[in-house]
């Protein structure tokens, strides 16, 4: 499963929505996720990919696409090292 698919699965499970509603242009607000959902999703994704997403970086994401790109980049960096 691709990083994107894995992220969608994690978010869908935490926010209790169908994976299909998670688009690259969509936001946590669109799927009515509250601040706790966001923290939990962030932590679950950090654990899944063994990366850390500092709050400063997380605040810059405009939508899921930004988030997915960021995680993919971090995972690739990690694999390289």
């Amino acid at each position: 499963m691709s990083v994107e698919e894995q992220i969608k699965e994690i978010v869908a499970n935490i926010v209790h929505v169908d994976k299909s509603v998670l688009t690259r242009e969509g936001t946590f607000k669109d799927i009515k996720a509250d601040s706790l959902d966001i923290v939990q999703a962030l932590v679950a994704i950090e654990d899944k990919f063994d990366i850390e997403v500092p709050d400063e970086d997380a605040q810059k994401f405009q939508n899921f696409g930004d988030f997915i790109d960021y995680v993919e980049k971090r995972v690739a960096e990690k694999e390289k090292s």
Partner: protein
Amino acid sequence: MSVEGKLALVTGSGRGIGRAIALKLASQGVDIIVNFFRRREAAEQTAKDVEALGVKAEIIRANVGDPVKLDEMFDTIAANFGRLDILINNAASGVGRSILDIDIKAWDWTMNINAKAPLLCAQRAAKLMERGGKIVNISSLGSSFVWPTYAVVGVSKAALEALTRYLAIELAPKGICVNGVAASAVDTEALKFYIKQGLVKDTRQATPAGRMVTPEDVANVVAFLCSEEAFMIRGQTVIVDGGTSVAPFIIS
């Protein structure tokens, strides 16, 4: 007996009260395990400042609200040190909501970090305290008094204070002293946020002691409870509030 040469785990010690406790204990010669969850840079700064005081620091990242991560943290401590002398259950979180808006998720999140984690940490720590030890739980006056949107945190802190009493008695035969410290609103970034939001009155000038409680005030009491001079204090939660709670009508 001095605390010099002891080893302490301070959960949530990257910032605020946890950081102040880490530095206070370090200043007395205690090696510090700095636990953090979200802010690695802050934890690294605490560790650096601890080391500058001439003792050792080790950083362990773990969300104590997750029992698996908590276990991993203690596995690391057991493997690297084989012992623990002092546990400070400081890490806390919470969801600021009025009572009718607290859902199961918010309740579980808060209770897991503020009440369940201190129990699990104490259980694991006790096994590493074969020569006795000290456990201090950091509570808040929100356990006994009502603050806006603080309900679930206040309840979790009340649970923590009850836990403090049970731990104190049940761990006493193992030579482990357990106590708590409850502070009123401490002069931190978090408090400034609450005042700005209009949720808490700016009482900084109205505290009977003449100023706000600082993280260092809390750390001083924690350090005392970790000393042998506090040997006969068991299961107590010491209030550090500059007199606010015994003179509530001064604050208006």
